[in-house]
């Protein structure tokens, strides 16, 4: 019966060293399971003579009971230990970072996602511009009343050569058309500057410019493009737009664009009601602008538009005060910011 003794020692050791219930159960299966070592011994009894069977059977059953008892005892001990290892799961998890993206970045990404669907590519230009790119090339000659309307910031320097902070993203039209070859389909977000400061104006703000130049682009395409954009951006499928004749020196014809809204009860609601809200200016690129960029207006034509990014961010996300955009108040950034994973795509929905 040497086998039984060593098996007993072995099994009891295994039981004693089981550190958790799963390990203990593995020991049980290995000993007492259908194919367990003890079970196999019991199965082997049939091959013995009745006398041998009686003696061996008693010994094996004793072993079986011993092991079973040891397992039960170990199980109880383990249960008690786990009970003592109890933690308070209502305590907070370890702190993690709380980074957010600024609404301007998020809305720029949203705008890009939509215009990418319409075949636009991103273009950029410098914030500090020369007079020619910011004004003259855009058909705004010196002393034109529009220059005064722009409330330009000038850098120190000689009159005539001194630089300006770009008053709009339109100089990037000029730079892009001069650097490349038509057709063009560009979207240009960026910082812009005007000497203006009150509740709804800040000396720096963000604008996005669109430019489409091809052979047969007309105002109907402009309307179609902007209609698609505002519906996708504001996520309102039946949002209405209205083009109103206006004037910009760099477009002809020129228009301002309104979207449908309601102002009932003093609350602005986009998409509802019968009121209109102006959101952008646009038009067909002026032949002189095309000429200034070396394009023949008899061959090439197209449209451009410019829109305030901060403003449409305020409209979409109900942000009340423009000045707070630039104050870096942690509470504001937490409340109006976006998570790093909130990458806007048309496929997955722009916003959630």
């Amino acid at each position, binding site marked *: 019966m040497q086998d039984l003794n060593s098996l007993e020692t072995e099994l009891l050791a295994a039981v004693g060293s089981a550190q958790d219930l799963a390990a203990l159960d593995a020991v049980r299966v290995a000993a007492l399971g259908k194919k367990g070592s003890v079970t196999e011994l019991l199965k082997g009894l049939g091959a013995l003579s009745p006398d041998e069977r009686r003696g061996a059977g008693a010994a094996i059953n004793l072993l079986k009971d011993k092991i079973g008892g040891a397992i039960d005892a170990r199980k109880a001990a383990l249960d008690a230990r786990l009970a003592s290892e109890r933690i308070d799961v209502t305590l907070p998890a370890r702190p993690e970072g709380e980074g957010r993206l600024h609404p301007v*970045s998020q809305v720029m990404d949203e705008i890009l996602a939509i215009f990418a669907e319409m075949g636009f*590519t991103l273009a*950029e230009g410098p914030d500090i511009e020369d007079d020619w790119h910011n004004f003259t090339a855009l058909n705004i000659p010196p002393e034109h009343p529009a220059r005064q309307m722009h409330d330009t910031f000038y850098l120190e*320097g000689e009159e005539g050569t001194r630089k300006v902070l770009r008053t709009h993203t339109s100089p990037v039209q000029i730079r892009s058309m001069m650097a490349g070859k038509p057709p063009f389909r560009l979207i240009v977000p960026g*910082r812009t500057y005007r000497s203006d400061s009150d509740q709804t104006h800040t*000396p720096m703000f963000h604008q996005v410019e669109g430019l489409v130049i091809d052979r047969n682009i007309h105002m109907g395409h402009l309307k179609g493009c902007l209609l698609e954009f505002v519906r996708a951006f504001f996520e309102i499928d039946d949002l209405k737009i209205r083009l*109103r004749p*206006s004037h910009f020196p760099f477009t002809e014809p020129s228009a301002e664009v309104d979207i449908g809204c309601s102002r009932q009860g003093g609350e602005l609601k986009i998409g509802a009601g019968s009121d209109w809200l102006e959101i952008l200016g646009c038009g067909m690129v002026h032949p002189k602008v095309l000429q200034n960029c070396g394009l023949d207006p008899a061959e090439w034509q197209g449209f451009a538009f410019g829109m305030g990014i901060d403003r449409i961010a305020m409209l979409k996300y109900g942000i009340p005060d423009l000045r707070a955009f630039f104050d870096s108040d942690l509470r504001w*950034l937490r409340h109006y910011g976006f998570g790093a994973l909130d990458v806007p795509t048309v496929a997955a929905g722009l916003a959630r």
Partner: protein
Amino acid sequence: MKFTLGWLKQHLDTGADADAVSEKLTAVGLEVEGVTDRARDLAPFIVAHVREASRHPNADKLQVCMVDTGTEVLQVVCGAPNARAGMKGVFAPSGTTIPATGLVLKTAAIRGVESNGMLCSERELGLGTDHNGIIELADDAPIGAPFAQVMGLDDPVIEIAITPNRQDCLGVHGVARDLAAAGLGTLKPLKPVTVPGRFKSPIGVALGLGDDAAACPLFVGRHVRGVKNGPSPAWLQDKLKAIGLRPISTLVDITNWFTFDRARPLHVFDADKVSGTIRARLAQPGEKLLALNGNEYTLTGDETVIADDSAALGLGGVIGGESTGVSDGTVNVFIEAALFDPIRTARTGRRHGIDSDARYRFERGVDPEAVFSGMEAATQMVLDLCGGEASELVVAGDVPEWKRDIPFRPERVQALAGLAIDESEATKILQALGFQVDADAMDYIKIPALKVSVPSWRRDVHGEADLVEEVARIKGFDAIPAVPLTRDTVVARPAVTPEQARRARAKRLLADRGLMECVTWSFLPRSHAELFGGGQVALRLANPISADLDTMRPSMLPNLIAAAGRNADRGFGSVALFEVGPQYAGDAPEDQALVAAGLRRGQTGARHWTAAPRDVDAFDVKGDVMALLADLGVPADKVQVVSGAADWYHPGRSGTVQLGPKTILARFGDIHPRVLAAMDVKGPLVAFEVFLDAVPKAKAKTSRSRGTLRASDLPAVERDFAFVVDASVAAGDLVRAARGADKLLIEDARVFDVFAGGSLGEGRKSLALSIRLQPTERTLTDDEIAAVAQKVIAAVTKATGAALRS
């Protein structure tokens, strides 16, 4: 630009109401900013007759009036001293909202006597400031009639925004022309007037501009003698008051009328105060002028002045002078109608800060053909309203050439504006706007086109695109169909370059690492710029919005540090902020760099029950830098981190990440205490700047394949070493030496402990190094491992002078 509906209807034959007019104005590009319909606001207020007035039984200063409203007689308690039996006043029944207070009138007992409504004062109706008594109406005012109608206040006032190109609509007649063209009615043509001259003007006119003749190409004058000035008639006063102008005297009101009715500014001089000839000339530097607004201006010499033989009498096209202004006693008047150069007019007005209705029009360009017609019509009005006798005209200069023809292909309306319209309709629209359309093709161009002649009042129309706009805006932009902008490919192509894409990723990576994105001004106080290596003259604003936003930022850190300071003041001392944006080293386009900058201030996080937070340190921001560079595709084994950064960093606690000796990719570390002190922000504060433009461009990939993974099944072996080195030895050098000892076997080498002091002695430190060996062919034997260890020790010792710690 303001006008009333009634005023408009003097030029436009239409049955349209204010709403219809407003809608059409906006549709043609004359955007309506507001309509004030006082008849609507004042609708409940009616004319009432006070039949009886008796002392209130319980109050000395109150009266009890029996008021006939035309439909009933009501008892009203009134406190006005002028309330009396027999008068007619303005009555508001119970339920009316009082404009001045916004309160709703209720039937109530006043000192025990019931009062049903109120007799109103001017102030209560928002019509003036008079509150000494109730309004007294004329005896013949019909009882029960709407008060606004009786007082001529029932003419809605419309205010429109005029874009700078449309000076022709700075007069009501021009507005009417646009509306008529758009089908809202019929334009009433201006009646040509010619006033015969009865005598020769005793005052002559002249142009004395020399080379600057363009400053005033035409000056027309006329003397009218024997006029009687005084208050203008009520109809004229009402119109001017309705648009916010103060009636002054008949002569002045006439000039204002022409400014707003015809966009034709005029000026009147008291002829008896003028000596000699009136001439347009440039000002003399230092010359002084007391203007009609009561201000004295010292002129620079660039202005066009209207002067007589003794002095400047006014700034041409901008403002008249006090010395020759008309008064009630004026008997002889000299009327001026002239043309002034838009640019010089604008410059003069801007330089002296004078906004006037005349400047507003002249700087946009006044109709050159309206000088004579305006003078004739104005003379007629002076004769009609003030009497007198007109002289012959005195004229200096000529009407400048303004005629131009434009070839116009009607099909361009479809091609450019996307608006289907036939030639006859386009022609009709242009003609209604005053353009002459000649159906004969223009001979001198090869394409068939209409010849369109631009009217004198449309300075803004120069090319075919302008004509397309005219036709399209009058037809209406609503008629333009929305056409989808089709794309060349079914599936969209990337909209960004790889460099632009990784910049967008940089923002999300930093946000994911727990930093808050800020957007701060591109400008800052010069004192802050100077702390960060900036502030040079070329980057200062000549006209900053405020003194603390006067210089372009040389770095984004000062704005972020200031933001951290503001947040600390609000009770948020531990912040992690970043910004991805431009900074400026000069005023050329290539001087603008795109940078990802960030900072961490205070402690690593909130207090937590498992572990206390610690102060942020340079290795927090080094982590940000390295994670960002890795994401941007910079291979970690190619960069060097060297001690020290720019002046605004702590010299001993900052580092520069380089790619070779020249390319600086990033800087990080503690901000210099001197800088924090100057900015009044407390530490601990660590920061970083990653120069995104300096990161090498991603290579254009021909394949996205990542190659086959070669992972060894053989067990890796780790061995630890402790080296004692001089305190100045950089851990990076030690690691590099260890790695280089066997490039095939050594997969990784890293410092896992740094220890200084104790038994090591002054100036020494111990660096604990862990080496991971990864065999690729067969399991390493102990001898092979020992051999590699010896190579590591030898290499490290050679490179750094280290001794293996025993």
